């Protein structure tokens, strides 16, 4: 509940503040968002599995974001930034899908 409230608060804050992302961070923000989404789905799935732990959630959330951004940053330095972005997005998308499927099995028994 508090998590949902936090999500709503974050959205509202983003809408109200309208911050401008620094140019250096602009390529990494979408990656970080997708990684955080992946962590969020993983956390929900773990919660439904009964093995949720906020410490693991916090760690995986932050490390997912940082690692994803780092991978893309490294790709940028190597000159394969866009390809690396695609790769990270694909992997995270697959994970999000599998987590969503697990959540669905939990909730809808199918």
């Amino acid at each position, binding site marked *: *509940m*508090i*998590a*949902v*409230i*936090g*999500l*709503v*608060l*974050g*959205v509202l*804050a*983003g*809408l109200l503040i*309208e*911050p*401008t*992302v620094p140019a250096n961070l*602009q*390529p990494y*923000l*979408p990656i*970080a*968002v997708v990684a*955080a*989404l*992946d*962590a*969020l*789905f*993983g*956390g929900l*799935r*773990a*919660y*439904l*599995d*009964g*093995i*949720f*732990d*906020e*410490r*693991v*959630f*916090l760690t*995986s*959330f932050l490390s997912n974001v940082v690692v994803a951004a780092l991978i893309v940053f490294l790709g*940028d330095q190597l*000159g394969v*930034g*866009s390809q690396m972005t695609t790769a990270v997005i694909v992997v995270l998308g697959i*994970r999000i899908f*599998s*987590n969503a499927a*697990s959540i669905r099995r*939990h*909730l*809808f*028994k199918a």
Partner: protein
Amino acid sequence: MTSADGPRPDPSGTSGGDAQPDDGPVIDPRDPLGLGDLPLDPVDAGERPTPDVAPEATDEQDLPVQDAQADRPGEPLVGDGRDDHAQDDPSPEDQPGSDDSGEDPPGDEPEAASGADDDPSEPAPDDDTVAEPAQVPSPAGSSARPARSGWARLGHAMRPRTTQGQLITAGLCALLGFALVVQVRQATDTQLGALRQNDLVRLLDETTTRTDELERESLDLQRERDELLSGSDRQQAALDAARRTAAMQGILTGRLPATGPGVRITLTEPDGEIRPATMLHVLEELRNAGAEAMELNGHRITASSAFTGTRGAVELDGVTIRAPFRWSVIGDPDTIAPALEIPGGALVRVRADGGRGTVEKSDRVDVTAVRTPHDPVHASPASDEG
């Protein structure tokens, strides 16, 4: 969970009474219900084989571990209820071993882990360890349990609690929502702004290259257009020149009708007959005076025209013409008229032949007769200059 736990003591009694009505007579001291059934079925009990009854009685009375396992099928409800209860409040000290979001356990694993969690949390050691293997092989029970607890867990999660974990999760979710909105806003705001420097450079290169190509193509096309225009100009000029030449030569060769200022000459023969030589003289006089197109009695006179025949039967190009001879001459009237009248000139010759001649100037003389020139058989243009 507590309701699931609640019936645990009951089934042992009720199931024993329902499943084994025959046991009644044997288990006298335990169940009052069995005692109640006893008087109803004494005859059946006597007919039923006793071996069924005997092991049950031993099960109920003494509880060895092996027998307890055999007895479990009557009690899986208890195991399920305990599992749910155990999974509702997970023991945090077990979690770090298995990454929740980082790894995707293959379905059975979390249940096994939760089963392992049960042991420390549950006080009854024997029942759980034994009940767990009995539960895993039965798919129906395991599938029904998380389905029921999925929504229950969701509702549980929705319950407002201010624990540290909830606060941390809320903070992370707020961060995610914030970043999400920022990114969405930015993605919709600026398309180019989100691109990397390399991509921008590549885009710029592509654009520049494309611009160069287009400019080059534009120049080519413009040049081609200019060429076509000047070509058409030249062609038009050549065409005009050819047309003028054709007109001029058509007039000179008698191929085209002509009109313009000139004189009309009428020669009559009141006192004699004009000789062909006289006619030729008149013609030459006209040519000398600059006549450009001439017609005599409906016959066009060209460079190859010739007067033949005899006196009184003059032939022009083989056609006999008779008086009066009417000339239509296009040329400068003020030059031709005096030229014919000069002493010793053409008209004087005509009078000498016994004829009469009148010259009439006109601003518009039409030479309508035409001749079809023959193509030269022997002569051909000497060079390209022609």
